[in-house]
């Protein structure tokens, strides 16, 4: 396909949680290059988050390989890896009250020396990251005063402050309303197009993934149900099989869009 070496390469990976009866992942492969937006879709429990954990070296695969920038993911030190991959995890805590600029500054950790203080370049990187996420106006706000959508933008800014080549976003739009959802997808797409970043996004939004992502991996029961461009993956047969629900697929703007069908016949108007 492309001659550029992949930033992230997972090849035929199998993984089983200790003590679990079955494989959480079986024979799954995934390659992401700079300038690519890759979405991972699938029902709850299909292995999306496990795949990301294996890809990032947080879990060692039983068979197969997981590499980042040509090196086994488990072989990276977390610090070096944090300069290549920025992650927005599903959940995080706020044990102590913090302001937005402070929390984004935490993203500079992999660039700081053990004893040294933050340098001007670190503060500039924070400002730049906030700007790119359209969150500079939030810089002096306390975290707990932010709305859900603002908070996600701030967390994205923190990942960008790491100055990574790749972003991994685990369901970043869960529980956001339409506008903030679209904001976030547009932002991620913009970082790919303008900044040349690679983005790997786990999401439940089949339709937004179809419109924003270059490639889609559809997981079912820890296995690859389909993989490729949205148009080849999101066919009616595949989507119905994976999500166990009847759907219609309609094109919109050249992208396949899924419409879940009602199973029970709708009651007729009384005559």
């Amino acid at each position, binding site marked *: 396909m492309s001659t550029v070496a992949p930033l992230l390469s997972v090849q035929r990976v199998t993984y089983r949680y200790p003590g679990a009866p079955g494989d959480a992942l079986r024979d799954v492969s995934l390659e992401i290059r700079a300038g690519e937006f890759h979405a991972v879709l699938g029902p709850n429990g299909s292995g999306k988050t496990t795949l990301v954990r294996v890809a990032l070296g*947080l879990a060692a695969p039983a068979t197969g390989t997981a590499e980042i920038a040509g090196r086994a993911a488990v072989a990276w030190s*977390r*610090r070096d890896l944090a300069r290549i991959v920025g992650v927005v995890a599903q959940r995080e805590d706020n*044990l*102590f009250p913090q302001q937005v600029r402070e929390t984004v500054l935490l993203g500079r950790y992999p660039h700081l020396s053990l004893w040294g203080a933050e340098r001007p370049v670190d503060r500039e990187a924070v400002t730049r990251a906030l700007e790119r996420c359209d969150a500079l106006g939030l810089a002096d706000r306390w975290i707990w005063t932010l709305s859900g959508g603002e908070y996600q933008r701030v967390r994205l800014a923190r990942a960008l402050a*790491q100055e990574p080549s790749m972003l991994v976003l685990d369901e970043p739009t869960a529980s956001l309303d339409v506008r903030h959802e679209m904001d976030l997808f547009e932002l991620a797409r913009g970082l790919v197009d303008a900044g040349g970043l690679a983005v790997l996004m786990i999401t439940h939004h089949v339709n937004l993934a179809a419109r924003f992502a270059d490639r889609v991996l559809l997981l079912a029961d820890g296995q690859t149900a389909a993989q490729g461009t949205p148009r080849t993956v999101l066919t009616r047969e595949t989507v119905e099989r994976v999500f166990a629900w009847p759907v219609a697929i309609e094109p919109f703007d050249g992208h396949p869009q899924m419409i879940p069908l009602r199973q029970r016949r709708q009651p007729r108007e009384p005559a």
Partner: protein
Amino acid sequence: MRRWLGLAGLVALALVSAVVLGPAHVALGDLTSSEIVRSLRVPRALLALLVGGSLGVAGASLQALVRNPLADPFLLGLSGGAGLGAVLAIALHVAGPWALPLAAFVGALGAMALVYRLGLVGGAQLDPRVLLLAGVAVGAFTGAITTAIVSLAEAADLRNAFLWLWGGLSGASWDTVLVIAVYIPVPLVVLYAAARPLDLLALGEEPATHLGADVEPLKRRVYIAASMLTAAAVAVSGVIGFVGLIVPHITRLVWGHHHRALLPAAFLGGGALLLFADTVARVSVAPRELPVGIVTALVGVPLFAVLLRRWMGPRG
């Protein structure tokens, strides 16, 4: 900068009052020549500074480790182990000037090892929540054995053991100051080096990992270094509660929660608090002396109640 100067001033004031005030009257002009000042008050003041500082730093780092701002270094079972070691030494009539501190130190390390092992019960990863529960369990267990021994001991021994458990700096000498001054820099440096990753840990273990922290080694290092500080403190001065709980909170109010500023501030704040408390313990009921742990508890518990209200207030 002003707050650092203020804190330094507080420490200086605490040091001066600890040296000037005491049950025996020493004229200001005789301060430098007085034997009482030179061989009793000055080493005792320095020991209070070092022990209080150690407890402050241990408390601040453990609160970040177990991700619970209400954790106290003695909540992790160390006090129980130290008490058991000390009471065993008293009951078995082990002699020698260092018998008691050494026995307490060994007891604290034993409790630390047990709690650490229990903290790993879920697998290869140290679980801070289990650590906290294991600490309480080990504390209760060693406390039961200690009470059993004390109840079987002779009356004079019993009073000694009981007072020792409440903490006190009356055993201070230049030798103890020297031992502590040589011992504590290592765990202090280990904890200060962990300051930034501890900031990340407040977000949770996985987010901290993604930001570049090696979470498992970090948790182990912080737990062991903070426990080593607490064990040394308990060995030379018994169980002095609430310094490690209250001081990090007050310093967090002024310095924020960034551990690079918080840890040094907690050291100075803990030192100042214990200096003041020990001065009160020496002077208030002179010529007798209160165990300093009673003073810190009497000051600490009401303060704790106020902080608890502050903490829970905005949420409920």
